[in-house]
């Protein structure tokens, strides 16, 4: 058992060979928040570097219509420019592939002007 720990602990501390799943760290607008003025972009910050070709996000209004103008992956972030948003509830869906080939996904809502 001691030998096994001697193998694991330095590896965990160094993190050299390991890459974990990418989790959503935070977003702007914040997850579940209400903002007074409509944002021009939704930005997502992740805990790991993403593979741009296999990572993306979408923003849809309460009727399910897309209001985003595509997504751009930049390292650990996804930038999603959106059209002019009227007051209402919007759902952000994201699906990403971290550099170690693990996929994660999630979704959340934010509200504008309500």
């Amino acid at each position: 058992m001691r030998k096994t720990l001697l193998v694991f602990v330095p590896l965990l501390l160094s993190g050299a060979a390991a890459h974990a799943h990418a989790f959503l760290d935070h977003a702007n607008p914040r997850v579940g928040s209400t903002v007074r003025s409509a944002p021009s972009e939704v930005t997502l910050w992740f805990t790991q570097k993403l593979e741009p070709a296999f990572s993306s996000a979408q923003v849809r209004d309460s009727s399910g219509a897309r209001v985003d103008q595509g997504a751009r992956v930049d390292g650990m972030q996804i930038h999603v420019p959106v059209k002019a948003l009227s007051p209402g509830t919007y759902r952000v869906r994201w699906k990403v592939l971290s550099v170690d080939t693990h996929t994660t996904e999630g979704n959340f809502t934010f509200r504008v002007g309500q």
Partner: protein
Amino acid sequence: MSSRILCAAFGLALVLAPTGQAAAHCFVGARFFPATLVTDDPCVADEMSLPTLSFSSANPSGRENDVGVDFAKRITENFGITVGTTWTFVRPPANDATLGTSASGFQNLDTAFQYQVLKDAQHEFALLAGLVVEWGSTGAAGVGAPPWSTLQPTVYFGKGFGDLPDNLGLIRAFAITGQVGYQVPTTSFDLTNQVPISQNLAYGASLQFSFPYLKSNVIDLELPNFINHLIPIVEAQFLSPVANNDGNPWITTGTVNPGVIWVGDYFQVGVEAIIPINRASGTNIGAIAQLHFYLDDIFPNSIGRPLIGSAPPPQKPFGD
């Protein structure tokens, strides 16, 4: 003969058939089910619990300390094997024939063969089927390891509540897991104690509240980072004799285990109390703690991958 070959080929195809992209430890859509301490999570994975420590009064008139190790390895994307063993110190000895006031030694070796039947990302639902085998005579009689083996077909499930309507708010961060198994010993009568060996229903469940899920999918309350890694949990496990139990008490034993799991990128740490449900299950509150490693994240290109086959190639998100 040919029908046997067809059945074998069909079974092999089932085992090798992928159910989704690589997610490894228990991700189902937006939901992450942590490795639970006294029941099992509903996924095959490359993981290792090292160690699991417990202090309990499982022996009604004394105490028991356990140190356990479990190693879970995916053979294919959907089929995995878990091997576990536990070293036990018990006072008084579990076996009347053991001399002295205490005994120590290994429990019987456990092996679980598990197949991932379903992962429904949209509904955060996972289903797992398995066969748990306790290998008789591989442990010490003084700590209660029986000389007979036990076969336990088991079904495991997990369900997150994230698909509930948004207006239910915090409830969406809850999830449940559960398992039901039927224990069949390979011997029906204990010649040493002159009693039948019962067949038992082994079942358990957990109710968990995920702060990571709350922050990422429901509402970011800007809580301290440490809190955002916590999953408070209540587990429960029970054993009920259902057949071949004449002469033994027909009593359900079990424990309820409230606790919390801290989830990191590469490992998790869990701590739970062990509360016996009746005197037959123990006389005092115990505790269990576990350090659990995600091998798929620590060694993504070696022992963290299935031995046979590979995950389907990554897909464009949303079919873009």
